[in-house]
């Protein structure tokens, strides 16, 4: 028996009516269970749009998306994925615990079950003791951890992350990278991770999907065969640098017409 992909993107195209922009052109992408896949590319390559199409938050102009063997819409309705945005998107009027428990409330879990799971998630993201705090009492990094705990609280098979650490400082970002990897290894979910940091993509992923802009296309794939568990030392491994170079060259080759600031963005 062959392994069924968690996500199948087939012939997906997206054009925006305003300005007649082609954001995505015939995207083909299969994600296998347990993969950690990063989408990387300069602004305007459609990586966020592709993520939103997988999550059924934006409809594709043509093509099909299957999640867990269902249509993207059905998968969304069934709560098959959790999503994390660049901002933590927490609800100020809810405590940390209630923010994490929100999807569980939506799924109709009873109070006891919810509390047990929320406690578990607080441990997972190391925020025990902050259950009754309000989001504005936390630092940016802590807020993003709450957001990750919320996305994982109902154990979705798929985790969609749209530049989740883009707004954080470098130190916090590297620490959260490590935490995310350890959570991912504990839970074994499939992750789609949008970023425009090459080193972040290589460090986290099992596979990097390199995209190029105007129109948004997949320029190539780089399999990341760095061993797990990855640690701070991984970033100093010569093979890590080779992979970073591979990704960078793919970005260069396919993006000859990159604007200088787009090039600068991808360091």
């Amino acid at each position, binding site marked *: 028996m062959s392994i069924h992909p968690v996500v199948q993107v087939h012939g997906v195209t997206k054009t925006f009516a305003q300005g007649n922009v082609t954001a995505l052109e015939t995207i083909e992408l299969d994600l296998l269970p347990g993969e950690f896949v990063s989408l990387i590319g300069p602004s305007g390559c459609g990586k966020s749009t592709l993520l939103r199409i997988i999550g059924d*938050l934006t409809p594709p102009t043509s093509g099909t998306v299957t999640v867990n063997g269902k249509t993207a819409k059905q998968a*969304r309705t069934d709560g098959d994925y959790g999503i994390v*945005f660049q*901002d933590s998107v927490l*609800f100020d009027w809810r405590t940390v615990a209630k923010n994490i428990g929100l999807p569980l409330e*939506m799924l109709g879990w009873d109070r006891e079950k919810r509390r047990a799971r929320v406690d578990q998630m607080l441990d997972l993201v190391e925020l025990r003791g902050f259950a009754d705090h309000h989001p504005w009492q936390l630092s940016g990094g802590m807020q993003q951890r709450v957001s990750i705990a919320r996305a994982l609280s109902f154990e979705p098979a798929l985790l969609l992350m749209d530049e989740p650490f883009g707004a954080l400082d470098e130190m916090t970002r590297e620490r959260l990278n490590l935490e995310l990897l350890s959570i991912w290894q504990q839970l074994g979910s499939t992750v789609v991770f949008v970023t425009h940091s090459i080193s972040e993509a290589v460090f986290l992923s099992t596979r990097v999907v390199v995209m190029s802009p105007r129109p948004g296309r997949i320029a190539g794939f780089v399999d990341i065969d760095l061993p797990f568990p990855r640690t701070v030392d991984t970033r100093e491994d010569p093979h890590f640098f080779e992979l970073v170079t591979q990704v960078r060259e793919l970005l260069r080759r396919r993006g000859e017409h990159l604007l200088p600031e787009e090039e600068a963005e991808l360091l």
Partner: protein
Amino acid sequence: MKRVREWAPALVVFVAVIGAWQGAIAVFHIQQFLLPKPSDIIKAFWTERHTLWPAGWYTFKEALGGFAIGSALGVVFATVVARFRSVGTAIMPIAIAANAVPIIAFAPIAGAWFGEVSPHSKMAIAAVLCFLPVTVNTLRGLQSANPRQIELMRSYAASEITIWRRVRVPTALPFLFTALKVASVLAMIGAIVGEYFGGAFNALGVLINSDAQIFDFVTAWAGILVASLLGLALYGAVVGTERLVVRWAPDTRE
């Protein structure tokens, strides 16, 4: 202790102003009909308590009724406009234009519609005054929901009603309470202005008006004091409710 330090400056200024007022009258020999002494006003506030206080209560009830009606209609109207945009574009300009009518001009007409002596005409005036600030603010609040939060709720397959309940309404609450604070003060103004154009003989606005006509300015000022205290009480009640309901808002943060 922190509370005391917060309130101290306001208290000092208040006492200083009253003291200066009292002193200025003694020093510059200001005639009583121009400005009575604060001590005389306080005295009248007490000696006339059997007429002023019930009158205040009567007017307060009118203001409260108008506040409740005007604010409730404002919230309902804002909700309909936020839900059905076309209704908003059709009706909002008219609502704003109607609000531009000076309320004094409306008072005699409200008397004709709801009874010159009846408390209903005062409630109508207070309600009209409260309606627009509540509508505008509530609408603004309902439209201020973070689009990402709505998108997140969609990712949970939340229905439109759930999104309202969990995102739009909580976002709108601080806006609503700002409007209710403004409306609470306007309601008292509306009720008293309404009474200047006729009202029950034991209504506060009527008393202030008639005391002023017979040059009993001390009692008129005492009546104004009653009106201010009741206006403050209503404002305070709104602030207290806000503290209970909107515990997360920035201004109630420690």
